[in-house]
Structures are given as C-alpha cells and as structure tokens.
C-alpha cells in the first residue's frame, strides 16, 4: 500500500503565547515547535497500516520554510520512508491555498490513502485535508476516530455531537484523523539514526492565492482571578447560594 501523510509543524501546545510586535503573529521567541499532535496520530495510523498490510511505502509531506525539514525527519525517525518539503517562505492561514499546493503534489502520487490530522493546533481550522480531497476528487472521511482498511475498502467511525456514525468508503481516499485512534510511537535511537539517511526532497510549493489574511492577533481577555469559597461539604450551601444569587445559573 502506498500512503501519504501530510504533516504540520506547530508550536508546543503548552506555550504561554505573546503577540509579536507586528500585532498579527505570535511572538515565536522561546517557543518550541514540533509535529502537530493530530499529524502525529496520522503518522502512527499510516505506519500501523503499512506494518499490517505488508510491503508498501509511507511518504510524509510538509509545506513551509526549511524548519519543516526537522518535522519531516521526525516522521522518518518514527518509520516513514521518505519526506517531501513543499518550500514556502511562510505557511498561509488560508487552508484552501495550502490544499492547492498539496493537491498539485499528491495528484500524480498514485497513493491508496492520504492522511491528515483533523486540524492543526495553530489555526484550528480543519480545512486542508478535506479541501485537498475535493480538489483531487477523492472520497474523504473527515475526523475519523476509528479506521479499518480491508479488501480495498475502508470503514471509519466519526464522532457527531452526542452520537457517532460508521461510514464505508472506497479507496483511494483521504482520511483526516481525530484523537483517540492511535498513540504515536516515540522514535527509537535506531529510527533516529536511520532517518538521517532517508531521502528528503525539497521543491517549490504551488500555493494558491491566499484570500484569507490575518489582520490582527490578540490574547483573550483574562478571567477574573479565581476564588476559593470554602472547604469540604460545609461549603456546599454557600456555593448553591452563589450559583443562585450571584452567577444566576441555578
């Protein structure tokens, strides 16, 4: 099976963000970056699938400046066979512009499956995977929380609000990966050494024209400081009173 995984480099999710001097980007000073969580689930799913179905190839693709090579190397250290960097000075906020570049790269790849994270931590928009599928005219399952592939066919579970749906789909297909599907493996020392010798190709990204632009960024307003009203069940009656009279939610 030939599988592609599109991955993104995003800031560490535990970061306390500051807004940069431009007012329209985060201050990246001191911020650690790594493979996005959802992308790492997608890599894990791809690797497990290859391990299960026998000979095949897993290719990781990342769009961005040269620092994404580090993210591609990480994917390769987990077991991905090779990496492709779609070179761009910056990663636009506009998901469709990115999807166009990925679709142009994936079109001739003859992949049986193309995986994405369901969204990336930074933009949280969840556009790229599903839009890429449409551009390639491939069937797409958005946000799969379970996945089985057998006999050229896929079955996936998708969480809905208060329910879930099971879907069947034909291959080739695009699947974007939700949390809970697989725990990403840690790269082994052997994997890290092997990754250094795996092929990493860099080529210009054919980005679409961005039509969604960042005008500004701001931190959300602070919550008022927390208040401890008491200890143990003795504080319960005070809490109920506050919920009724002050917060008016009971």
């Amino acid at each position, binding site marked *: 099976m030939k599988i592609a995984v599109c991955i993104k480099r995003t800031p560490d*999710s*535990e*970061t306390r*963000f500051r807004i940069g001097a431009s007012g329209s980007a985060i201050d990246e000073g001191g911020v650690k970056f790594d493979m996005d969580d*959802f992308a790492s689930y997608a890599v894990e799913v791809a690797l497990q699938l290859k391990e299960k179905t026998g000979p095949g190839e897993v290719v990781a693709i990342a769009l961005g400046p040269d620092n994404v090579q580090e993210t591609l190397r990480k994917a390769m250290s987990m077991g991905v066979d090779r990496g492709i960097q779609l070179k761009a000075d910056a990663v636009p*906020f*506009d*998901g*469709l512009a990115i999807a166009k570049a990925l679709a142009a790269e994936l079109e001739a790849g003859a992949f049986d499956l193309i995986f994405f994270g*369901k969204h990336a*931590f*930074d933009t*949280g*928009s969840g*556009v790229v995977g*599903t*839009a*890429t*599928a*449409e551009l390639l005219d491939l069937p*797409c*399952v*958005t946000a799969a*929380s379970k996945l089985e592939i057998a006999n050229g066919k896929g079955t996936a*579970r998708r969480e*809905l*609000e*208060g*329910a*879930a*749906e*099971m*879907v069947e*789909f*034909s291959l080739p*297909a695009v699947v974007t990966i939700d*949390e809970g599907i697989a725990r990403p493996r840690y790269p082994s020392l052997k994997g890290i050494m092997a990754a250094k010798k795996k092929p990493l190709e860099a080529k210009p990204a054919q980005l679409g024209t961005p039509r*969604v*632009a960042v*005008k*500004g*960024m*701001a*931190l*959300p307003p602070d919550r008022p400081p*927390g*208040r*401890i*009203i*008491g200890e*143990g*069940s003795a*504080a*319960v*009656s005070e*809490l*109920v009173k506050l*919920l009724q009279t002050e917060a008016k*939610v*009971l």
Partner: protein
Amino acid sequence: MANFLVFAETRGAELRKVAGEAVSVARRLADATGGGEVHALVAGPSGVGQKAETLGRFGADVVLVVEHVALTTFAREAIAETVAQRANSASYRAIVLGFSAQGRDLGPRLAAKLDAPLVSDVTDVEITGDSLTVKHPAYANKVIVTLTVSGAPAIVSVRPSAFTATESPRAARLEPLAPAVDPTAGRVKVVQVIEGARGRPDLADAPVIVAGGRGLKAPENFKLVEDLADAFGNAAVGATRAVTDEGWRPHADQIGQTGRQVSPQLYVAVGISGAIQHLAGMRSSKTIVAINKDREAPIFKVADYGIVGDVLEVVPALTQAVREAKKGH
C-alpha cells in the same frame, strides 16, 4: 444589498440548534448590507420542509427544501454538490454554516468546489462594504485571530453557541430543490448511526457541563459526576484527557485542546487539576466551579467558585443541594 445562503443543518428530520444560529448570523449580515435576502437550504428525509417555519422565525426569506430518504443521514457528497450548485446558480455574498461535525466536513468541500475562501470556527463576523472580517479563536482558544476575507461567496462556519438565534420573523417562501446528485450513490456511505447516552444534551448545546478528572480516583466514581449532571437536569457530562486516555470515558467526552471546546453557562470541574491542555477547552465558560483536594491546583486560578475538599464527599452533598434548590423553584 446582498443575499446570503445558509446550510441549515439537520439530524434525521430535526433541525440542529446551530441551524437557527447560522440563519440569525446571515440575517444580521444581510441587514447590514441594506436588506438582502437570506436563503436557508435544509436537507433531510421527507417532511423536513416543515421546519421552514422555524427558519423563517430567525429571518430566512426563502427555504430551499431538499427531501430524499437517503438524506436521513449525512450524505456529505450529495449535500456538498447540492449546496455548491445552488451557490453557483445565484449570487451570494456569503454562505453561512455551523462549525459542527457536519459543517467541519461540508465547509472545506464547498471551498474547494466553489474555489471560495473559507473561515472556520468563527465567533464574530462583520461586513462593511466589500470587506468581511471575522474573529476566530486559534491556538486552542489561546489567541483570538482577526481575519479578513476577500472574494465572494465567502464561506463562514460559525462556532456552535457563539451566536444567539434571535427572532426576526417572516413568512419564508418554500422552494423545493432536487438533490444535485443521487444521495444514494456517494463514495462515502453512512452504514450506521450510533446514538449516544439518551436524555443528555451534547457538550456543544448544554447550558451546564459537569466534567470529571483523575481526582475521582476510579472509573466507578464517575457515577457521582453523572448524578450531579442529573440533578442539574439539563447538563452534559465531560472528562479530562487523563480520564479518556485511561479508558474511564469515551474519547468523544474529552474536553480540552485536542478534544471538545466548550463554553457553557456553568462548568463544574470535579477532581480536575486544570492542566493547560484542559483549560484550553473550557476557560471561556461563563461560570466555573471547581472541586479539588489540592488547594494549589491550577483549576482554582480560573474557578469563580472553588471548594477545596475530597470530591467523594463534596460532590454527593452538592448533588443533594442542587436537587433541593431545583425543587424549590
């Protein structure tokens, strides 16, 4: 003066709450352009057209009714094609839909089909002249991004519960619309819908959420969380990532950066320490209550009302007190 198209989401033959919110957003935008029309497209099984009245109440001038037995479940490919064809056949300034399980799937499909700009998970939207500006919480709600969108139609998917469905009643004209492609012929087919816990609202819709963390010590103690939710009567139940990773609760219940992001009127955190990853999913809740043994737990920094104590002792007492308070109404 510009017209707006809304995808009014259904589950089975019922409108989802976000459908009314999306219509309200479109109504406000249409009025801001000098009074254009709002067209709401509703797709579902036979009889779904009866929901037109509700959509009219929130400001839809026209309800486009797509009825087909195969639309009882989310026939994503047929719906995307039908909405796209409609958008191509008329001139819309924007298409508004919910950033829900359906909308997360449909929005990017429409963007690609129509080659139109898409903004997701929008919590505020303004239109002045040719410029459409939105606010979108990014970095797991830690940064609010203002985005400008150029080109029409702009596709705007709105965060559920971020907007209020407000009445702007009119008698909506009904127009039947045939599905653009056969809804039974999709390459992605729904084979089963698994209903969740009965009688509880979803995390996205619930005014009250009671969530449990590892401080509950054992999966069977989650019953205390369920009981408290039952006492409130209209509450959903959530969990931290630690708890879903342990398998105490399904992953779908996880509130946090990688799970659901919620902003109910009241959030009760039971035995939750308040890791950044969890706070990212609930810190925009209106009122936060925390019950935790550890006085130094970060959850108390965001809690409007904190009680330091053993959840196994405090929660049953609170459940009892809430029951009594509800009875007193």
